[in-house]
């Protein structure tokens, strides 16, 4: 910006339409403007710049940010009456600005708080001094489902229970920050904070560069380094444990795993042997020594925690007791989130640190204490009343947590009766009016209640505080309306300095020494999903090729009873493919399965690859409702084949040739070999109808080559080109060549000169075919060849996926 722009900006500010139309709520503090409606210092520059951009330019820029999020496939999962669905990430484009001196105070307060929680957790699972001294009620702890008895008396291997925490903060009417919730179990959203940052800076890159906003990458780098050093590489590795793709924040788990370069695992990837936690990989069992879990502790081990958990690892608790793995955070730390616990924090803080907390919680009363119960009943209208043992945030707990004054007289009497009868079950919390932050509604800025989520990570040098986080912005003026599930928005948080800030990236500086990381190991489940992705994509392509040839002929003759068409229908029928439908369900199914397989391993996918795959799936679903048999379907298949080729090209050109790629490639070659052998057997049989050979050449995409290489068209020339030719990328032999190569490069395929069973199998089939002549390959022989290739899957699965 030049000096002239500054002056212009200042002049404009005098009559700022954005500010003029902004109406803060009387009596409620606003982040952007003061009580007189004047912008606060750190917001002045921001407002003048967006004002200057003009409404049209701003809308275009916001659209760009949204486009970025869509292109990256950022979503979150919502649960409602109709089940679960993926929603676009609701980015509120205006960031929340916080001055970095104020941020320093927040950081110090949260660090103190994190230390306090560490001490409480260590005491609850250790000496129990707080209970003995009457600072925590034994009954409250013992009745909490988050109090995990199998972990009592277990000291974490590194000495710490907590490694990654989050806090939800709100600003009260007096301008001070209050802690609304402490997230100590498996806090989510750190990855979304990163994505918010990337998207927001897409829209506001110039002002972001100018405003001295603290960078986020350094925080993640320090945490990753902490994980790696705790893991003690190369003997052990860190990993992230996710409940799986159905979890509401799975996208974020995959994103963080990819961003940090850490393995993303599910419970079934892990097993425990002799007290050690191991991941099943294609190279055998490998030790995991740090597990950043993103699932609730109760689900982590069906043997000692919840027996009905299907996403856990039996024996994990034993591995923890044996001291072989550090949990981030310790199993059992969820008890710290118990809402009633908040009522005891002031006393515990005073006893342990000799002073009150700098960043206090919202005032909380546990009705299991008689004096607290009296306070709650006496101030009923001003209380948020909810279950004592809930670990949800009050504003996310809309079914069970209510504002006293919002109840009608019956509900009120009933709740008061229940509090009197069973006080221990209830907690009252002061209803805080949250400060508002600006959000665009259409083209004008409007105030909405905002809360702030901040992350802390333990490093060898103590707690690191993420300089930023994400803000939740309500969709209405209702304070409880900020939860994402209910349609709130998320905004980036800019911690703004008046001096230039350090530019940081996740990559260590090469000046610090060049180091080549160990290649990652590939979990068996990921390998299996990659292989199936390859198979489903190839199956979709093969099906589309046959269907295109079918519909092209149907369009020419308009006679579905023509022998060749009937013959193709007969061929496809056993595979569940109904050629009479323009877009058979089986084709949709195989593309959906490809998306599903890829969805299981989002961390291994580039956003581009994922987008291309999603586009394929959307296209085929759209076609299913629009396309008619014949010419229309021919063109639809051409579109699908082009998109499949695009996806394959993306993988071929962009995927690093490591073990994962080999499994994907093996899947594709396996499927193509099987399909080619089978269709060739069918269409080259003696009683095949007229036109079958031409059709086969078309399906095999080899019409031109055939014309060049053979003087005539017959059964043998086709078999020669499509089964035996080593140079034709569609031939069966070509697939076996590729399979032989890839399988021989898999882990332990040729250990000490001995071939693995799969390597032997593929060599046998390859050699057999290499010595065959076209005349040897009768339809029966071709079918047997297809079966042999299909059999390779079994030996591979046994060796690598078991």
């Amino acid at each position, binding site marked *: 910006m030049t000096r002239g722009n500054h002056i212009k900006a200042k002049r404009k500010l005098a009559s700022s339409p954005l500010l003029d139309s902004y109406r803060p709520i009387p009596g409620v503090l606003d982040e952007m403007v003061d009580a007189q409606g004047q912008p606060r210092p750190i917001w002045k520059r921001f407002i003048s710049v967006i004002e200057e951009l003009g409404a049209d330019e701003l809308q275009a820029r916001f659209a760009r940010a949204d486009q970025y999020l869509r292109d990256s496939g950022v979503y979150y999962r919502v649960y409602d009456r109709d089940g679960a669905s993926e929603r676009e990430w609701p980015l509120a484009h205006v960031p929340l600005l916080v001055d970095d001196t104020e941020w320093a105070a927040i950081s110090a307060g949260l660090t103190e708080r994190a230390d306090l929680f560490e001490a409480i957790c260590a005491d609850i699972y250790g000496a129990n001094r707080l209970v003995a001294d009457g600072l925590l009620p034994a009954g409250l702890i013992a009745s909490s489902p988050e109090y995990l*008895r199998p972990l009592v008396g277990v000291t974490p291997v590194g000495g710490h229970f907590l490694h990654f925490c989050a806090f939800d903060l709100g600003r009260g009417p007096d301008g001070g920050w209050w802690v609304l919730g402490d997230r100590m179990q498996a806090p989510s959203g750190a990855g979304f904070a990163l994505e918010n940052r990337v998207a927001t800076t897409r829209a506001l890159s110039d002002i972001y560069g100018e405003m001295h906003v603290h960078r986020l990458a350094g925080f993640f780098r320090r945490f990753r380094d902490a994980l790696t050093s705790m893991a003690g590489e190369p003997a052990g590795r860190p990993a992230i444990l996710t409940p799986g793709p159905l979890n509401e924040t799975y996208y974020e788990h995959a994103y963080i795993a990819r961003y940090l370069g850490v393995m993303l695992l599910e419970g079934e990837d892990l097993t425990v042997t002799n007290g050690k936690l191991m991941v099943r990989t294609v190279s055998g069992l490998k030790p995991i020594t740090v597990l950043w879990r993103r699932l609730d502790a109760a689900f982590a081990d069906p043997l000692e925690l919840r027996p009905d958990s299907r996403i856990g690892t039996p024996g994990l608790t034993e591995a923890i007791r044996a001291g072989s793995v550090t949990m981030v955070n310790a199993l059992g730390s969820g008890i710290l989130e118990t809402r009633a616990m908040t009522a005891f924090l002031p006393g515990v803080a005073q006893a342990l640190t000799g002073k009150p907390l700098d960043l206090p919680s919202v005032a909380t009363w546990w009705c299991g204490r008689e004096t607290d119960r009296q306070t709650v009943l006496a101030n009923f209208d001003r209380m948020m009343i909810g279950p004592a043992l809930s670990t949800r945030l009050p504003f996310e707990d809309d079914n069970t947590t209510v504002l006293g004054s919002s109840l009608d007289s019956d509900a009120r009497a009933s709740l008061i009766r229940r509090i009197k009868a069973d006080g221990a079950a209830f907690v009252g919390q002061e209803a805080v009016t949250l400060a508002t932050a600006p959000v665009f509604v259409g083209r004008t800025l409007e105030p909405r209640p905002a809360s702030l989520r901040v992350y802390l990570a333990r490093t060898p040098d103590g707690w690191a505080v993420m300089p930023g986080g994400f803000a939740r912005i309500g969709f209405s003026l209702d304070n409880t309306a900020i939860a994402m599930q209910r349609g709130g928005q998320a905004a980036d948080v800019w911690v703004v300095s008046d001096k230039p800030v350090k530019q940081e990236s996740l990559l260590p500086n090469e000046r610090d020494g060049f180091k080549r990381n160990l290649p990652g190991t590939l979990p068996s489940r990921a390998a299996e999903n990659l292989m199936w992705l390859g198979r489903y994509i190839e199956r979709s392509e093969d099906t589309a090729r046959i269907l295109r040839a079918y519909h092209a002929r149907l369009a020419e003759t308009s006679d579905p009873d023509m022998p060749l068409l009937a013959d193709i229908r007969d061929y496809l029928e056993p595979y569940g493919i109904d050629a009479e439908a323009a877009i058979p369900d089986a084709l949709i199914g195989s593309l959906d399965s490809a998306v599903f397989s890829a969805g299981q391993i989002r961390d291994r996918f580039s956003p581009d690859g994922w987008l291309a795959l999603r586009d394929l799936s959307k296209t085929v679903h759209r076609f299913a409702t629009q396309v008619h048999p014949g010419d229309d379907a021919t063109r639809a298949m051409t579109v699908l084949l082009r998109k499949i080729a695009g996806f394959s090209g993306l993988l071929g050109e962009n995927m690093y040739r490591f073990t994962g790629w080999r499994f994907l490639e093996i899947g594709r070659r396996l499927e193509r070999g099987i399909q080619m052998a089978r269709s060739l057997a069918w269409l080259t049989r003696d009683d095949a109808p007229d036109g079958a050979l031409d059709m086969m050449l078309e399906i095999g995409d080899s019409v031109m080559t055939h014309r060049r290489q053979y003087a005539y068209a017959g059964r043998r020339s086709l078999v020669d080109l499509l089964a035996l030719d080593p140079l034709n990328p569609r031939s069966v032999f070509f697939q076996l060549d590729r399979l032989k190569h890839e399988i021989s490069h898999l882990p332990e395929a040729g250990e000490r000169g001995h071939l693995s069973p799969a390597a032997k199998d593929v060599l046998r089939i390859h050699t057999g075919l290499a010595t065959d002549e076209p005349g040897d390959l009768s339809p029966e022989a071709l079918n047997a060849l297809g079966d042999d290739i299909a059999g390779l899957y079994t030996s591979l699965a046994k060796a690598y996926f078991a």
Partner: protein
Amino acid sequence: MLYDIRLQLHYDYDRAAGGSRHHVHVAPQTIPNVQRVIASSVSFGPTPSERSDFLDFFGNAVTSVAFRSAYDELDIRMSARVSVSRPETGLDVSPKLADLGGEIATVRSLAPDAPHHFLAASDFVDLDPAITDYARDSFSAASSVTGIANDLCDRIYADFTYDGEATTVATKAADAFAIRRGVCQDFSHVMIAGLRGLGIPAGYVSGFLRTIPPPGKERLEGADAMHAWVKVWCGQQAGWQEFDPTNGMRASNDHITVGYGRDYSDVAPIVGVLKTTGSQTGEQAVDVVPVG
């Protein structure tokens, strides 16, 4: 009393199970003022790939085993020699129910025998209003906590029918209560639910029962199987008292303890996920033989 106890658990699987991990709670241990274990051993067939023994939160002996290769039947054998000697039931020194809450609150401890662990609902024991109402009748009949427990124990014995077919190992307290039928596990869960509903801490005791009938008396139920009964916290002074609602009696020197828990799930003889798609069948054989 001195006993030789033998237990054999046998499981057959439709299809071979493999890669499984189990926790086994079958071995009695020495418990002051209850019993002394002179010898005990637990063995498995096939031999597990891994085995370790530890004490769980409640102080129960747990044998953890893992099998890496597949098997289609599993045998667990336990044998022990145990001397049981419980103190005589003395005078009722338990408080009135109205004063019990205050006494519980004075226990500033999360030790395994602290009453706090045994008040809330647990996996098999919901605080079912119907059971609480049922238990409340015992409250009017007697005023002390021990008296209430005694009365409830007797009423369950009188009102419920012992029926091995009516319930399964997974039946919850409320379901057994609705049909007034079941086995020792169900009777115990119902009694626990009733007591907790009244605010009385109550836990589950798993063990064995000597089943040879004394001359002239009816044979006790619970033969040829593991047994279960209830422990009740009757205030600071009276402490834990044990009741057997299946037989309408206090736990005696015929009751040999394996473990304590909030309900069956804490002390089930065998827990663990089996990786098999087929069904499984189990048998158990128990011998409790008085020695000398």
